């Protein structure tokens, strides 16, 4: 019996691998091989920056040099991404909640509206914020009309009465650009919740706040988890927002990698910095998954 089960399992495995092979091949060709090449370059020396020749010599100092030179940008990237992610949750969760439970027949229209901006290029949308936030734009007009410039300076929303070209603008741009990636997964997990559970809670005389805390929130956490990953990872790697909406002190790690790669022709340092960035993100995601793992929550 056990033997038979075993062989069928083995057969199953073989066909499983057979079915997986296109995907595995894809991963091998377009992920593992490039990663290997990247790692090799990260551990190499490029004796002449203008010739495509690399000497593989286990040059670990590429890594330590990159950390020394770009630690500020690394911290900044993760800081901005974290801030934008938190803002996305604060804005996105109520939005998704409304869509899932309250929107009624407007739901499809509203969902569509969330997606509509994506028909415009990411760049155009970000550049549009320069007009919105800049001098003569609506954002400053509101502040000026309400005579709130001093207050907004005080709370750090503006700097010297300006929105544009500040770190606030960068975080705002990141939040704006990645908000739908937070809203949609949360919406999906909220939408799956059986309304009967809430009815049951009410029947048992639970207060709505408790029903939310004990039923809705835990059941929607997988959505928050997915949304956080979808927001945080690209936000940390993004630098268009920092370049267009920020100033000389808001540059993120992506532009540094590009500079190393393109302006300085320093592939080894660029590769090492990419690796450091990926390693930190991977470690962070694993830690996050451990703390807020989806399996227990789904059960």
């Amino acid at each position, binding site marked *: 019996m056990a033997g038979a089960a075993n062989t069928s399992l083995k057969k199953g495995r073989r066909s499983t691998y057979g079915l997986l092979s296109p995907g595995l091949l894809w991963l091998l060709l*377009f992920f593992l091989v*490039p*990663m290997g*090449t*990247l790692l090799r*370059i990260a551990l190499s020396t490029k004796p*002449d*920056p*203008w*010739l*495509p*020749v690399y000497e593989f010599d286990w040059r670990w100092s590429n890594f330590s040099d990159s950390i020394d*030179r770009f630690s500020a940008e690394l911290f900044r990237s993760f800081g901005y991404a974290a801030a934008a992610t938190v803002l996305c949750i604060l804005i996105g969760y109520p939005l998704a909640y409304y869509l899932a439970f309250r929107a009624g027949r407007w739901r499809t229209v509203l969902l569509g509206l969330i997606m509509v901006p994506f028909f415009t*290029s990411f*760049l*155009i949308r970000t*550049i*549009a914020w*320069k*007009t919105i936030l*800049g*001098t*003569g*734009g609506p954002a400053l007009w509101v502040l000026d009309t309400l005579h709130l410039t001093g207050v907004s300076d005080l709370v750090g929303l503006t700097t*010297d009465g*300006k929105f*544009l*070209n500040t770190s606030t603008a960068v975080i705002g741009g990141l939040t704006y650009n990645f908000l739908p990636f937070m809203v949609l997964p949360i919406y999906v997990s909220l939408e799956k919740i059986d309304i009967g559970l809430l009815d049951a809670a009410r029947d048992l005389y639970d207060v709505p706040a408790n029903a939310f805390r004990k039923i809705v929130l835990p059941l929607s956490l997988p959505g928050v988890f997915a949304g956080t990953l979808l927001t945080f990872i*690209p936000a940390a*790697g*993004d630098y268009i927002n920092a*370049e*267009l909406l*920020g*100033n*000389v002190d*808001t*540059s993120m*790690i*992506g*532009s*540094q*990698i*590009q*500079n*190393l*790669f*393109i*302006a*300085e*022709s*320093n*592939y080894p340092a*660029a*590769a090492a*910095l*990419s*690796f450091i*960035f*990926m390693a930190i993100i991977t470690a962070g995601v694993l830690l996050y998954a451990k703390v807020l793992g989806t399996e227990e929550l789904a059960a």
Partner: protein
Amino acid sequence: MATTRPSGPPGRRGLPDDPDLAAAVGMARRLTRRRFLAGTGLGLGAAALAPGLLSSCATSTDKLTFSNWTQYIDEDDNGNNRARGTTIYEFERATGIDIEYLTDFNDNDEYFNRSFSPMLGRGKPINADIVAPTYWMAARLVELGWTEQLDLGNIPNHRYLEDAYLGLPWNPEADRFMPWQAGIAGIAYNHDVIGRDLTSANDLFDPEFRGQVTMLTEMRDTVGLTMLGMGFDPADADPGEIDQALEKLEQARRDGQVLKFTGNDYLQDLGRGDVAVAVAWSGDIYSFETDADLRFVVPDEGGLQWFDAMVVPKGATHKAEAEAWMDFVYEPENAARITEWVGYVSPVKGVREILLAGGEESAAIAEDPLVFPDEETQARLRVFGTLEQADEIAIQTRFNDITG
């Protein structure tokens, strides 16, 4: 002229009427390729892996291929650069040579790391028979031995090359490059914001404009203007003097004087008044449509002259056809047609005279000091000198640390 420039400044066709929106679309077009090639750290990783793969993906044809910057040749009102009466059309008609005109040259360093270095550096030809890198990149290619020597016998119109381009240290005979268009890096300011005229390169460092100054990420233009303000000559490219200029820039950044370092994207900020003074390119100011009173000045201490130069990469398969093209666009009539549309400084003698004779609209361009700087201005223009490789890397690295 067969093709007159559309009503707006050059390169504006196909853009929305609203100036802000037009600027946004224009900027996105300029930004798109370069910025997204690199993308995120992850995307960059992938790009780093296969520069050869990337370049071999580009179109490869058996035709003469010219890889140029975008919006750099005359088009008809519909944005078609092959329409009847355009330079490309006339060239094909006159010579019977088919030309593939690409606009995939977006950035000197990017093209170098994507195509020149991985291909030419391994002794393989690239897909283009003519490319138009900026002068310092052209000089680098010439010095690396990655360009073909031109047969000037095939280019009789070489005699129309402006004298200033003869005798450059990296190619005194001017037989490995032919300038495509030229321009000036100087200072642009928003007169509405400042309310007075600026004349000095040091105005960039005036505390009055603290936090309202942008500079270019193009190292030679920003460092060069700083040097001119300090009384140094960027044409000497003395590493010690450059170092002092970098010192000054670093200090300016620490003091909050410089808001940011940019590509062409300073224009919108300048037009809106978020930026008061900027290191700027003459062609940008010439073609930027705005209600604001933007002014461009070549500082008293001098400005930076740059030019993009056509070169034939080593091993190009259509060298003779490339020379026929160069000869054709150096015919002053043809050069004038291009100038009228692109609005840059032409390296070809006799263009101004043709434009002056070409009717009102053309004559206006001939009188534009940004397109035809007068002799006194011309005398103040400097071309940044050639840097040794080690110096260039060290300077560029330090500059990148400053620009953030």
